[in-house]
């Protein structure tokens, strides 16, 4: 049974087709980097995987279950860190983590223990009692990651986890992702930093204008191109423009 499988998934927003017949499958324990330009359809794909958006056509299966037919069961197995990070920002960090953990059915003691462990591991040390609205961007990022992991999900979906964070936190998140993979958790992440994908992900998928234009193991990709950047630019068609005459 695959951990994640997309069958011809399409998503329309009115007249705009954001995702166009995307299909791929991942075995349990896979780690894949989902690449694409801004607005290519990465976040929409991740939202469909985590059940926040419904595909216009096609279907998404998580651990063999159709996300549309079994939304609650799927959400229990998925941990998602969205790019927007619109957290429940009038709670403090520990309150938020406890709330999320309790909603996933963890008892208070376990919730508090896991929250403390995650906060310690991610060096998430806000001044006591400060609400999330007053956290820095990096702290919010760490908190969002903690909330995605606190219920021990079997599939983790991370949208731009390395954006706007310092080098130390970046290292910690990389370690956590490696740990997740070692424990058999399937991880799908998006990022614009291709070097991170090259260092972390054994497999990549490239989306351009909603279509999956590249998918496969990184080693195979590297066989045809010296770098991932070279392949990426070739597939998405990025060209250098001329200079700005007035600058």
């Amino acid at each position, binding site marked *: 049974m695959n951990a994640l499988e997309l069958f011809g998934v399409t998503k329309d*927003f009115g007249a705009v087709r954001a995702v166009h017949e995307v299909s791929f499958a991942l075995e349990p324990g896979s780690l894949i980097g989902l690449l694409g330009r801004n607005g290519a359809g990465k976040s929409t794909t991740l939202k469909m995987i*985590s*059940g*926040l*958006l*419904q595909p216009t056509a096609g279907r998404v299966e998580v651990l063999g279950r159709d996300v549309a037919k079994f939304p*609650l*069961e799927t*959400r*229990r197995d*998925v941990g*998602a860190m*969205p790019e*927007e990070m*619109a*957290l*429940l*920002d*009038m*709670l*403090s960090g*520990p*309150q938020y983590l*406890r*709330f*999320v953990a*309790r*909603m*996933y*059915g963890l008892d*208070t003691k376990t919730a508090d223990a896991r929250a403390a462990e995650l906060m310690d591991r991610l060096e998430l040390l806000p*001044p*006591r*009692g*400060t*609400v999330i*609205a*007053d956290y820095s961007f990096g702290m919010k990022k760490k908190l969002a990651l903690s909330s995605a992991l606190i219920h021990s999900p079997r599939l983790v979906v991370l949208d731009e986890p390395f954006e706007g964070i310092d080098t130390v936190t970046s290292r910690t998140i990389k370690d956590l992702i490696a740990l997740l993979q070692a424990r058999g958790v399937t991880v799908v992440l998006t990022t614009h930093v291709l070097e991170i994908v090259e260092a972390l992900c054994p497999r990549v998928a490239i989306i351009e204008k909603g279509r999956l234009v590249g998918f496969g193991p990184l080693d195979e990709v590297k066989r045809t191109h010296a770098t991932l950047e070279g392949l990426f630019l070739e597939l998405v068609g990025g060209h250098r423009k001329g200079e700005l005459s007035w600058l």
Partner: protein
Amino acid sequence: MALRALVAAHAQSAWNRSTRQLTRGGRNLALAFIAVCWGVGTLGFSTAMLALGWAAGRDLDGRGLTLAGATLFALSWGLGLMFGLTGSGRLLEVGQLKAYPVRPLTLLFAELAARAAEPLTLGCIMGLTALHVGLAVAQPGLIPRLVVMLAVHLVVLLGAQFVLGELLAAIARRARIALVLVGALAMGFSPRVAAWLDGPRREHGFERLLRLTDSVRYLPSTRLLGAPAGGWDALGRLCEGLAGPLMLLLIGAWVMGREHTAHAAVATEREKGLWTFDSPDAGIARLHLSTLFRTPLGRYSLVAPLFAMVMVPWVMQMLFHQQRASLAVFIYAALGTVQFHFNLFGFDGPAVAELFRLPVSSATLLRGKHLAVLSLALLEGAVLAVFLRLVREESSSECIAGLCVFLTINLMMATLGRFVSAVWPRTLSRSGLRGTAPPLPVVLVNLFGTFAIAGSLGLTHWLVMHYAPAYVVPWGVGALLLGAAVFALTLKPAAAFLEARREHVLLSMK
């Protein structure tokens, strides 16, 4: 240049927002509806003001001055104050403009220009202009002075809205405890004052009117209009007339400057002893209650019953010489909580995605949200019942029946509101009163729902009190049970409705 850019950006945002909320067709329909209503209303109002100005202008040495002065004052200061108090706060997103080198005065004028384009304010501006034109037609010699007066009154109309609206929001945020105390004190004195108004020593209506007429001549509008031509007295009165708008502009610029450079204060929260709940419903309810109490609207809802208790009996006393008004108080107070039912996800805003990714069903989400809002309503209603009984000495049966009506209205509105929340969701600001005004369809649903529910309860209450007053409590309990039954029976279809519209709610909350 900056002013034009700010106003254009505001207009474009408002236009795009309405398209997004109502769709293109809905926006056009709403626009057509508003344009027709506004056109007819404004035409009638402006014609009336033109005639009034002309009639008053022909008798400026007599009663015309009083009439014109009072009308000018009412249309500028009076309506400015009223719109400021009832409006939805700031129109311009000043917080988002911090990065730009814009002067506070430019921001202020952009805000005033945006306000001038609001349909009601625009109608008032047309009326004010027509009034001045009427005066000018009757007294062509006063045209230069009337031009100055028109500018003064327009600035007052717009400035009072902005400054007083800001003031109200600040008071709601910072002085809620003082407000409760003032409300409680006023409540304690209100029966005596009302009795004095209606008592044996009261003046005849004609005497009161004369006294009122006499005081109109001290208003700045009257003094400016009736100023002699030339001389120190005329200059003094001109300065007097300009003082108000200048003060409003200065305060407005100060507020804008302060906001433009403001840094948010760090908020803190007690971490221990909170967030223990046994079921997902209770967790959602706790979260929702916590959010409600952090918003000016939520905090205001705690004070609202006191206002209702003070205000409604006064109005009843003035209109019907009847102070026993517990039902009216309860109905008024219940309608104040309706907006919470009609936008259940509004305070979550974009964070609704956090709720939707949790493994909880739509029924659980609705139950949790209802639990929070109805708990708040129950608390308000109970406070109201106790105070009405102890302070205003309303009968126990009326208080119990009133509480039942209060809860019934809340249950019925919650029943309606769960569908409205899924169809027209919108993000509400948690730090101010801006953006609290609902879209037109919600206003209409609210209006007709209120009319049907409160009207039928009021009518049956009147029938019971007229024919079988001893049964008022069973009637109230019966109404409550009926409301609860409708509420419970529609939960499942409402949850299915929300489930089908989760994506719509999510995408609407930007």
